[in-house]
């Protein structure tokens, strides 16, 4: 094994800056996608539980389809294949802005929302049914009952699974390098091809992902310890 390790090369100067830029993009695309995922996931979950059949069917099909196809294919679909599906105005706007980033956000959001919707549904199901009946009986509409009574309680239970889905999203965001979003994985790959020091660059990137994961799972454990035990039905 005649491989010369050169950690200094990867950790400082231009390449160090690339790693930092990559971390920034990874965190940006993850944060934006997580926000949209929560919105879309909640909508899909509530649709799934509504009594209006077409809503229920739509969200069932949505969840099953996007959960059972690979994220990479979805990324390629939104990146290469969405122009013939989206309206022209939307396409033009996307091309004028950062199209790679947008395609990445759309695919991560839709993919993760399918999982998040199921977590939220499970959370809502764990709230006793008579809560909804009682709040409807006090004169709240269906939406109001969800908004003020059911969801605030359900979200307390589903915060840990939601955080762990967010963590999955952060890890999955490494796939957007395939369409040219310059995230952490992209930068590690880039440094490898410029310097042939793949070992060092991938070690640094791996450690950064690992730190993010450990911090997040530590947070989940703390939350479980302090809050979740108090919830009893």
């Amino acid at each position, binding site marked *: 094994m005649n491989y010369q390790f050169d950690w200094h090369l990867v950790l400082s100067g231009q390449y160090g800056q690339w790693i930092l830029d990559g971390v920034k993009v990874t965190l940006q695309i993850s944060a934006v996608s997580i926000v949209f995922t929560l919105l879309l996931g909640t909508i899909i979950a509530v649709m799934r539980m509504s009594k209006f059949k077409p809503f229920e069917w739509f969200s069932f099909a949505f969840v099953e389809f996007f959960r059972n196809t690979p994220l990479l294919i979805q990324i390629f679909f939104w990146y290469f294949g969405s122009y013939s599906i989206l309206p022209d105005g939307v396409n033009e706007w996307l091309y004028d802005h950062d199209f790679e980033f947008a395609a990445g956000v759309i695919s991560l959001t839709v993919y993760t929302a399918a999982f998040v919707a199921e977590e939220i549904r499970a959370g809502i199901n764990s709230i006793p049914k008579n809560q909804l009946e009682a709040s409807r009986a006090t004169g709240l509409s269906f939406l109001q009952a969800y908004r003020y009574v059911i969801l605030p309680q359900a979200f307390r239970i589903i915060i840990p699974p939601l955080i762990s889905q967010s963590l999955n999203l952060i890890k999955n965001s490494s*796939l957007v390098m395939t369409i040219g979003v310059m995230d952490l994985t992209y930068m590690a790959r880039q440094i490898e091809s410029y310097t042939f020091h793949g070992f060092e660059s991938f070690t640094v990137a791996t450690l950064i992902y690992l730190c993010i994961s450990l911090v997040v799972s530590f947070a989940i454990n703390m939350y479980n310890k302090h809050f979740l035990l108090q919830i009893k039905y």
Partner: protein
Amino acid sequence: MQWDVVWNNFDYFLWGAFPNGPLGGLAVSIILAVLGIFGAFWIGLAAGLMRLSRNILVKSISVVYIEVIRGVPLLMLIFWFYFLAPVLLGKPLPEFHCALVAFIVFTGAYIGEIVKAGVIALPRGQMEAARGTGLSHVQAMRYIILPQALRNMIPSFVNQFVSLTKDTSLAYIIGVNELTRTATQVNNRTLSAPTEIFITIAVLYFIVCYVLTHFSRKMEAHLAKYQARDR
């Protein structure tokens, strides 16, 4: 919409250039997934049992393995094996092998966690009774605990197989000629029907995965009737 591009290349999506060339497409994806889950099962079983060991060293090795692998994106792991194999072995490993090793190591960590949870879910009395009849710890595991625990874990294994099937698409990045790669090849060659091509590929993956998911739900309901659980 130009679906003829899809129909003309449909057999290429399914098995690549076979029999005139190497096997590719969906066939390779499925082979990767099957070999991957088979390897990951044994790694996962070992990791899960080590995780439950009383020996602090054995336990820590397993905890570190499971936590590190679960905290890292699969793509990173694939790159690791792809760029590390030449450094460690002195010669490059075929892409298929790199991907397979990465899948086994990655899925093994998740299966390790499933095995641990499955063994813990059995009533404590099972182990105590087995030891009480004079079996050693290893014998009790081998003949009493594992047969029950593994049976209860079958649905989780199927789910892991489904997510591995989806994950095989990442082998595309290092150049394994599986379904995703055949799709991008056809897309680059024709340049006229990306929407149709990727919808078709998504549907192919969906059929494989949904059938399995459905099967695992059925089995979960069936097994639940016979489960010994600590309640």
